[in-house]
Every structure is written in structure tokens, then in C-alpha cells.
């Protein structure tokens, strides 16, 4: 019995083996669901894989799908590393998109200035939005989970309200004006829809580049990876990261060590908000060029929670987890087209796979937090 336990512990401690096992289990359970629903699982998984990997267009689209959730995952991860649960990436994402859209069409600057200006402004707006939750916690003790959920809804309605303003809403649409070309970061986006571009694509139809251009390729993923590296650096190499993590691990010791705990919480949430909002900004700049009135939350922020868990709440983990998640979602679309499987089944199968990867990490996270709490309690018991 102790032996089995030890092996279990060893597995828990080897994140790579553990992730692999979780994926296998998730895929198997997903297969069972497919069989029950009357689809051949081999063919279904084959279609999903083909949906991701067949040709430059699919690969590129999978990456494009992944881009926003890499960063929302990073946002959740960052907060978590500093001891906070950021359920607010959804709202912060919206605030970022809103800011990017407004400044994208209303301000005119040369691209070299306009692009960084819009990115930074989106991040700053998100920092304020997230920082507000941190401030509510530091000043009034409002739990950040509650505060960020409320702020999600406020962001949601703010988005819809602003889109409907006459100076923002594009006539005869449910969307805002499109951002200016100077703020766009899609690759050859304007060119490929121009007469010259369209002609070239027709001539070279089927070629690698023509295929690639069929995807909504943009610089977002490059920016996202750079931000992941930056955040990793901040967390692990700077005094700021040292302080924020110390507060996350042990508030009391951090306070005794002269660290301003309240300030740290505000900064943590502000940075988490900035990351998620940048994600929203990149989405507008790279893909949508506008924001629309929303009927429901889109889920980019909530998916970020799953991505963060799949990535075992490490900065780099979000890149792989985001790609996996985005890839499955994109590949799943082909399942619907080719096998006529309803989208619900696809969502269930994808959800199952994600569940089996994310939940063990979640459980591990909970166990660790509990152990910490217990250790603390025993110490206080002696006193």
C-alpha cells in the first residue's frame, strides 16, 4: 500500500509524465463518449488531428485560436503565483478589446507609434480594471473572486453600452467602427483582400503561402510569447517577483520581512489585468478589428483558467496548454463538418480531455494549499 502511494507521489512530482498520463486518460474517456454517441472514435480523433495538422492553413488557424487564451492563461497564472485567484480575465479581456477598438479608430498615428500605443493603452486599462479588484481586497477585504466576477459583468455591459454609442457604432451593424490600418497587426491583412492580393492568391492557389494567407495570421502569438518570457522573468528574476511570490506563499512572513502586502496585492492584480487586457487588445488588432455587442460572455478569460491549470500554473506552461486547447477547438470544428457530429458532442469530448488534464492539476493545487494551511494550523495549535 505504501509502495503504491510512493509511486503515486512520484508521478505527481513528475509533471511531464503526469501530463502525458492525464492526456491519455482524457482521450480514452473521450473515446468512450464518442462510442456511446455512435461515432467511431478512431475516425473522430483522426479528423481532429487532421483538422489541426493538415496544411499550413489549419496549423496557422489553430495557433490563431490559441493566441488569446495563452495570455488569459498567463494572467490567471500570474495572479495564482502571487496567491490570488483571478476569475476576472474575462472582463479584463473585454476592457482591453474595448480600449484597443476605441483608440484604434479614433486616434490617427503612424503604425510604428499607433501599434505600441494601442497595445500599451489596452494593457494599462486592464491594469486599472484588475488593480481595482486588488485594491478592493487590500482596502476593504473583498475577496478577489467576488470582486472580479462582478467586474466581469460590469465590463460586459460597459462593452455593450459603448458599442451602442452613436459615435462608436458603425451604421447598420452591431459592431464598432473598424480600427485604422495603422493599428492592425494582422500579417498582410489589408493586402490580401486588395485586388492585387486577391489576384496573386488566385494565381498561386494551393501554394504554401496562399494557404497560409487563408488563415487570420497575425503577430499576436509572437507578442504573446514575448510577454510570457517577460512575465517569467518578472516572477523569477526581479525583486518585484520575489516580493509578490513571497506574499502569495506566506503573507505573514512577507509582512515581517518588510514587504508591503497590500501594495503587493494591488500590483499583482494590476499586472494580471494588464496581461488579460493585452490579450483582448491583440485580438482586436490582429483579428476582429472591431468589437461587437455581446449576447453572452465569449469565454476567452474563463478558458484561461483551464489553460493555466493545464499548464500547471507555470508561465511557459501556458504556451503549450494554450496551443493544445486552441488546437482541439479548431480541430473539433472539422469533426462537425466531416462526420456530422453535433457541436455539443465535440464540446463534451474536448471538455473531457481538458477536464482530465486540468482537474488533477487543480486537485494538486488544492492539496498543496491545504497542506500549507494545515502546517500553519499545527504551528498555531502549539501556541
Amino acid at each position, binding site marked *: 500500500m*505504501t509502495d503504491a502511494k*510512493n509511486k503515486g507521489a512520484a508521478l505527481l512530482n513528475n509533471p511531464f509524465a503526469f501530463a502525458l498520463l492525464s492526456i491519455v486518460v482524457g482521450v480514452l474517456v473521450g473515446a468512450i463518449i464518442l462510442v456511446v454517441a455512435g461515432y467511431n472514435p478512431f475516425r473522430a480523433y483522426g479528423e481532429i488531428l487532421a483538422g489541426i495538422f493538415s496544411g499550413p492553413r489549419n496549423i496557422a488557424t489553430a495557433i490563431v485560436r490559441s493566441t488569446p487564451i495563452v495570455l488569459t492563461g498567463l494572467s490567471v497564472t500570474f495572479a495564482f503565483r502571487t496567491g490570488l485567484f483571478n476569475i476576472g480575465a474575462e472582463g479584463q479581456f473585454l476592457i482591453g478589446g474595448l480600449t484597443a477598438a476605441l483608440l484604434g479608430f479614433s486616434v490617427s498615428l503612424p503604425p510604428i507609434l499607433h501599434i505600441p500605443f494601442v497595445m500599451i493603452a489596452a494593457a494599462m486599462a486592464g491594469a486599472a480594471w484588475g488593480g481595482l479588484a486588488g485594491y478592493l481586497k487590500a482596502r476593504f477585504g473583498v475577496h478577489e473572486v467576488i470582486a472580479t466576477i462582478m467586474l466581469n459583468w460590469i465590463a460586459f455591459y460597459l462593452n455593450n453600452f459603448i458599442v451602442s454609442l452613436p459615435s462608436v457604432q458603425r451604421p447598420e451593424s452591431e459592431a464598432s467602427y473598424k480600427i485604422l490600418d495603422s493599428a492592425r497587426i494582422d500579417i498582410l491583412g489589408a493586402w490580401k483582400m486588395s485586388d492585387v492580393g486577391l489576384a496573386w492568391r488566385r494565381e498561386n492557389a494551393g501554394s504554401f503561402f496562399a494557404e497560409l494567407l487563408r488563415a487570420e495570421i497575425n503577430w499576436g502569438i509572437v507578442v504573446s510569447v514575448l510577454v510570457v518570457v517577460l512575465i517569467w522573468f518578472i516572477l523569477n*528574476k*526581479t*525583486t*518585484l517577483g*520575489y*516580493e509578490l*511570490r*513571497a506574499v502569495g*506563499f*506566506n503573507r*505573514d*512572513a*512577507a*509582512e*515581517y*520581512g*518588510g*514587504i*508591503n502586502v497590500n501594495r503587493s496585492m494591488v500590483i499583482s492584480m494590476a499586472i494580471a489585468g494588464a496581461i488579460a487586457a493585452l490579450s483582448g487588445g491583440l485580438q482586436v488588432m490582429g483579428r476582429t478589428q472591431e468589437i461587437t455587442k455581446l449576447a453572452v460572455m465569449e469565454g476567452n478569460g474563463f478558458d484561461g483558467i483551464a489553460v493555466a491549470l493545464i499548464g500547471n500554473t507555470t508561465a511557459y506552461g501556458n504556451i503549450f496548454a494554450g496551443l493544445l486547447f486552441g488546437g482541439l477547438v479548431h480541430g473539433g470544428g472539422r469533426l462537425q463538418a466531416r462526420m456530422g457530429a453535433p457541436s455539443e458532442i465535440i464540446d463534451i469530448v474536448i471538455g473531457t480531455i481538458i477536464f482530465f488534464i486540468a482537474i488533477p492539476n487543480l486537485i494538486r493545487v488544492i492539496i498543496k494549499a491545504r497542506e*500549507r494551511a494545515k*502546517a*500553519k494550523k*499545527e*504551528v*498555531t*495549535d*502549539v*501556541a
Partner: protein
Amino acid sequence: MTDSVPRIEMRNITKTFGPTVANDTISLSVRPQEIHALLGENGAGKTTLMNVLYGLYPADSGEVLLDGAPVSIREPADAIANGIGMVHQHFKLVEPFSIAQNIVLGSEITGPFGILKEREASEAVGELSHRYGLDVDPDALIQDVSVGTQQRVEILKALYRNADVLILDEPTAVLTPQEIEELIAIMRGLVEQGKTIIIITHKLREIKAVSDRCTIIRRGRVIDTVEVGSTSQQELASMMVGREVNLTVEKEPAQPQEVTLRISDLHVNNSRELPAVRGLSLDVRAGEILGIAEVDGNGQSQLVEALVGVRHVESGTIEMKGSAITNLTPKQIFDRRISSIPEDRQRRGLVLEYTVAENMVLGTHDDEPFARRGILQQEVIGEHAGELIEKFDVRPPEPSYLAGSLSGGNQQKVIIAREVSHDPEILIASQPTRGLDVGAIEYVHRSLVDQRDRGKAVLLVSLDLDEVMNVSDRIAVIFEGRIVGVFASGEVDEHQLGLLMAGGSLD
């Protein structure tokens, strides 16, 4: 009596936890009606051995005999059925329940339909407490009674289940000197009435005071079982630690200089916003160790928290070398070279998930040379840790180990190394040796005296009276948030201090 069959015999017990061998072929023999002490440093394996006997852990190998007959104890119910009772280090009581309810819990007296017979329970407990001289009020709620009383409840719980052999795991760790004396009397009374007692402790004086024989365990192995009457404390300590240890703190007379820390009419509230420190005044001089003696809960924690800036001062002043530091932030206080060894080392002293090296710069992580333009200088931090580890003999000597993986004594060394390396003018040490064993205690005390000899002020706060009396040059007694007396060390004895701590007076 010597050649009678042992009441309890454990033969070649081995118990491992993964790679840790907690008990390595341990044999233990306890005579009927004996008080048998288990002595050993923290982590020696005492609790594990008793948990095996009580059926909480299965042994990997070895056997247990009661009165010469082999028995199989697989779970605590078996132990209880065999008349073995255990009082754990951490009490397992239900706070909002009455004493009687706690005692009968699990074997309640019930009438028809399982209705609790509260009156009978209360009477039975009253009778039991009377028979064994364990004074308690059966109807009082656990949350309202002292730790000493809670411990009696635990003992009564075992007796109520007809325990004949009682295991007490570090029972004195939480008690005041008076309560310890009462406990010793209770133990004697129980033995007279036919009970057998195994007591775990690492306090030598108590072993001498109460036990007949003592088994010394070091790193999971039995070193020896000795007659306590013919073995000195020094010998016991050496066997326990495995080397010669100094039990008394060796120090020259203090050379006190000017007042470094002046506390005047200080008022501080506790977390429930009730007054905890109530008009406390105190001076601490450079070159002396001032010890504060108190019973837990008389304001000492809040005093220290106010001194280091983590608790708000309601009124009064704290001055360091003539300038006020009242209600400054922890960082500002720290920067004026006031360092502290916090009461709760795991909660306040260390970030257990950080490495030893990272912990050693907590507080100075922002300063050159550990950080440049906001970037941590890992190499410098590592070298700094290496030096301190060597100087303060932290084991294992690995800067990259997580602080949480170190033993309590070594965790404390990390904290002391860090705080002393700031070269503080005032060092505040709260319960600096709580839970540590003799070897580590000797080390901590040495560090405090060194600090003093370098002309710095040391404020020592401890619930351990021996420690206060041994280490301090002057002793201040706190009762209900005020200083009720300041004495030169040697001027008062333990009994007088105990009286003052309990709110009495010396005349």
C-alpha cells in the same frame, strides 16, 4: 519487581516513511506501574513509536507484547480494548462542547432511542475526576478552560475508556510551571492507583522529577534504557544528542550601557480589538539581555508585534535611541536596525516554499548587492547564503534547499543567521527555542549572548521560565498587559516568578 513480566514490551519495531527510517529495530520494555520516559531530539522517532503502539501506524516489522503475551494492535480501537490510552501532542477536543461531552464522545451514555443522558455523563465524569484527583468542572465548555485543564480532559478521556497504560506525548510543552507541578502530582497519583505511564519529553528536568526509567532514542534507534535516579541530566543530554552539550548558558556578567529601546505607557489591542497591552513601560539597554516572563496570553505577542510594526499602537510611545518609532512600517523599523526572531518561525519567519538562500535575504532582497535595478543577483544571494550557512552551521549545507524541508532547529538557524547578519542594534527574540532540542537550544542561546557581548540590546520573550532565567541579565514579568516587576537575574527564583506571572504578589 525488576524481574516481573513487563507490562508492555515492544520488540524490534521498525517503521519507515518512504526513505525515512523513523524507528529502526527499537525495543522497549515498560514495567507495571512504572513512569517510563522516552527521551530524544525532535524527529528521533518517539511519537512514531507510540503511534505504532496505539495502532495509528502499522509497524513494518516487530511485535508488541502485553504482560508477556503477543497482541495485534491494528487500530486505536484495539489499543483501547487492550487498556492503552494516548494523549497526543495536539489535543483533539471539540471546543464548543462541555468537558463531560468531550469525555464521553464516542462512547456516550444513551437511553432509549439513543437519547444522550447528559446528567449521567456529567456525573460519571465528576466521579472519575474525583477518583483520580484530576480536578475539572464537567459542565464547563472546552473553549473556556485553560490548556492545562484541556490536558486533564484528554487524560480523563483515556481513563474513561478504562486505560491502564497511559501514553503522554510531550505533555508539558504547553503548561506553566505550576501546571507542570500539578501534572507531575497527577501522574504520581495514577501510578499509585495501578496505572502505568509512558511520557515523551525532551525536557531533562522533568524526566528527573517524575520518571523511574528512561529510554533514550536517537535517530530512530535506542541508545540505552537507564535508571533515572542514578543518571545525571548531563549524561542524559549527551546520550540524547550524541555529543557533549552545555546545559547552562555560559556568559560573563553583562555590561549594560545606554538605553536603546524605551517603551512608555504602551497600549495595544489584540485582533479582537480588546486591550492586550495596557500601559506597559520598559527600558532595554545596549549590552544586556532583558527577558520577559509571562503566561501565554498576557500581551507579550501583541507587544512584540507592535515593536516590529505589524500591529497598531493605540497610545504610548516606542523610542529607539531617543527617536520615536511608534507605528512606523515594518520596513522602516527594520531599516533602523531592529531585527526580530518571530514567535512562529514557520508562519512569520520563513517562506517555506522559498530556498534557504532566498529566505536569507528576506527583508534585504531589495538592497545592494542582492538586487541591482530591481533584478535579483542570484549569484550574490547564493554566496551570501553559503557564508551564513557555514557560519551558523545550517544543515544540510545547501543554499538551494527549500526552507520547508529543513528541521525546526535548522529553520531557526536560518532565521537567526539572517537577522543577526543585519547587525541589529536591537534583537527581539520571541520563543526562540520553542520545539527545539537541546543541541539547537544551546546554539540559539549562544547566539543571543554573543549579540549582547557585541554591545547590542536583546529582548527575549519566552514562555519557558528556565530559558528566561538562564539567559537573561534582567527579567521583567508581564501580567495582563503590564510589567509587574523587573528583577536582576538571580534576584528571584522560579517560584516567585511563577507567582507574579499568575497575578500574585511577593509579599
